[in-house]
């Protein structure tokens, strides 16, 4: 998933199953069909743009020193107020480093002016800024928006790639529940720079706010549902003053988010999968997807089976800090060609260089680790837990747990659990559940064959 703010382009998450299909389908679209699509815009879009253009803005974040722009997105005036909705990720630098960055808007006539950041909603990637002029009343946010039907036409507006103001047409395709906050799926082009721009029905009723698109797909775009924008907007009164420091507010929101996330993840006991004699915990849900892979090449002296579970969403805080996600990885290795010493040394190599700790990191502290040989019924392993604390937000931590089994001479299970942006208590709780879930079948050790070393 890619956020739509220039000039930073995020690397998309590796997603092999989708990547393979996307290239083949895009090649099948005939050239002439594309050109007809381009040359005949619907008259609705034409009328809509004419009516909306006065309330459509480009939001720019500039360096105080030198006035060069460091990020560009879009925004729109709500009703007849002087308040503008945009994405948090467009103005995140203003919120986190107000001493270095400031923002300004530019409208479709080319006029520009200062913006004042009033409120942020990090979880839904929304922000409200105030400008020095009123809207014409075209973009409407209502408390109870009319439900959308799949296939309904929607229009996204914004300033993609800093080229100029665009309107693009597409269809509504339901809600995505892959993150812990739902997003509208929109089949239409939404490009970097359109972030924070409105997505509306033909009558100006706001359906959502442009936020992201899938790089490995075609025209698969995501919107923040209008209801969250409405809720944030409703909190602001004409007397609202911008807070002096956004960091505690963001930290508070991240803490609320992590408790929702961890409660959901820990609500049910973890599911178990078998890898050799081991039973390993995974969390498979709408938000966390698991993929398996196996490597059994003939010329190798060992083979591996892996299970990889990951959340596809993360909370954007800044370019260097995306948080609020977990991943689980299990790697089972066995050999019938190596002896136990050589196999163990190979496993030691797999187990090394797992922690990347750096004092130069502005966002998190260096890691602190604790390690132990642990035994849980008949499963014994070596476990390492490393923790990093967030420097800007108090009470938030990154946890990294990795283990290697130490009970079988010719089999090994290495597991890794990464929890980013959680409270200490929740991280500890998840780790404890995860470790409890790592078990081994009893009957395997009873067989004499497996305890002998292969030559």
């Amino acid at each position, binding site marked *: 998933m890619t956020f739509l703010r220039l000039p930073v382009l995020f690397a998309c998450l590796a997603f092999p199953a989708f990547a393979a299909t996307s290239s083949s389908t895009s090649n099948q679209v005939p050239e002439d069909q594309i050109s007809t699509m381009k040359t005949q815009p619907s008259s609705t879009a034409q009328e809509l743009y004419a009516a909306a253009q006065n309330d459509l803005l480009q939001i720019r974040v500039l360096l105080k020193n030198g006035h060069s722009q460091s990020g560009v997105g879009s925004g729109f005036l709500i009703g007849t107020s002087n308040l503008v909705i945009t994405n948090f990720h467009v103005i995140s630098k203003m919120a986190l480093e107000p001493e270095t960055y400031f923002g300004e808007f530019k409208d479709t006539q080319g006029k520009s002016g200062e913006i004042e950041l009033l409120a942020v909603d990090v979880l839904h990637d929304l922000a409200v800024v105030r400008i020095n002029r009123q809207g014409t009343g075209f973009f409407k946010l209502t408390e109870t928006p009319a439900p959308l039907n799949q296939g309904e036409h929607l229009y996204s507006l914004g300033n993609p790639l800093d080229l100029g103001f665009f309107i693009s047409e597409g269809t509504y395709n339901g809600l995505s529940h892959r993150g812990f906050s739902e997003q509208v799926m929109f089949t239409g082009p939404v490009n970097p720079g359109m972030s924070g721009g409105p997505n509306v029905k033909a009558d100006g009723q706001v359906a959502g706010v442009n936020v992201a698109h899938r790089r490995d797909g075609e025209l698969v775009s995501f919107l923040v549902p209008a209801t969250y924008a409405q809720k944030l907007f409703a909190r602001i009164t004409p007397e609202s003053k911008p807070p002096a420091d956004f960091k505690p507010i963001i930290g508070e929101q991240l803490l609320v988010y992590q408790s929702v996330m961890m409660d959901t993840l820990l609500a049910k006991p973890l599911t178990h999968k078998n890898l050799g004699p081991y039973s390993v915990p995974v969390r498979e849900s709408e938000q966390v997807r698991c993929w398996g892979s196996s490597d059994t090449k003939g010329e190798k002296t060992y083979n591996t089976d892996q299970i990889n579970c990951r959340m596809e969403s993360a909370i954007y805080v800044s370019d260097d800090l995306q948080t609020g996600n977990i991943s689980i990885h299990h790697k089972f290795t066995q050999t019938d*060609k190596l002896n136990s010493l050589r196999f163990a040394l190979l496993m030691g190599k797999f187990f090394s260089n797992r922690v990347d700790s750096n004092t130069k990191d502005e966002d998190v502290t260096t890691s602190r680790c604790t390690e132990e040989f642990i035994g849980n019924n008949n499963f014994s392993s070596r476990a390492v837990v490393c923790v990093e604390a967030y420097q800007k937000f108090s009470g938030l931590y990154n946890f990294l747990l990795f283990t290697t089994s130490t009970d079988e001479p010719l089999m090994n299970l290495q597991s890794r659990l990464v929890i980013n942006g959680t409270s200490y208590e929740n991280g500890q709780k998840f780790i404890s559940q995860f470790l409890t879930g790592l078990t081994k079948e009893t009957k395997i050790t009873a067989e004499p064959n497996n305890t002998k070393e292969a030559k």
Partner: protein
Amino acid sequence: MSLFYFVEVLNHSGELQARHKFSELPIRVGRSYTNDIILDDPHTAAEHAIIELNANGKLRLRDLGSQNGLKLKGKSHSQTELDADTIVQLGRTLIRVRDSQYLVSAEVSDSSHKHWQTWLMFGCAIVMICALSLSTSWLGDIANNKVSDYIMDMTKWLMSAAAWAGIWALANRVFSGTANFGRHLFIFSCGIVALDLLDHLYAFLGFAFSWEWFTYYQSHLQIVLVAITIYFHLRLINNKRAMLKVICASLAALSSGLIFMGNYQSTNQYADNLYMSEVLPPAARISRNHSLAEFDQAIQQLKTDIDAEREKALKEKAEKNNTNKP
């Protein structure tokens, strides 16, 4: 028996460069060709100094009004009494005067540096390096390597060993005449075998007894071993043992200090590793396993550490910001 006087010109390492024999005093020293000893040193005067007997009948060196004078252990003197071990600096030339009554030290026995010993050491070194190379390749062999792979590996090891010993042998040849290649090779192979054994030893201690801190500071033990190896190389070249010990020890201390500094810079900790990554077969486990509850307790304790770390980082940042402001 008549008395002879020997004036010896030395180089800066104290080694003899020239010896002049005189049967009578005084002896005149300087750059001009009227002297008894003619110096080729531009920092000496034409008539620099004279060696004569003083009122007590002792040998004396007297300055003849030169610009750079006479220096004894760095201090200037206009004249100085000479005994058999006094080394005087004239300009940049060092001289020592002895007479024929000087008693030389006892004969040194020629038990060391025997021919067969050198060949034995050379042979041992080759065997050790081959054994080390074979064991290392075998332990790291995860792709069913063929015999030729092992031989190629061994060749690489032998060539590196020869290159290392060759450099020392060259230095040995330059500074003390003989190359001593076999001995240098032996010293190197002992050093490298010790390093490898140490590597396995702390992996074993760490894994078997859960003594992780062995692996945290492994680089310092390695430095000590390297320093010892280099000490033996240097000792073979030069016999000034006390000084070599000081040099090697201080170099080792310096390297250790640099490693501590580097580790602290990258992780805010002095240890080389944040955790122990060595894994050995289950049979090598000796200490007991801890329960999940105990581990949970350890994670709980880690919170104090990480919170302190955050406090420290924030404090450092605040200080930095303050100093940046004019």
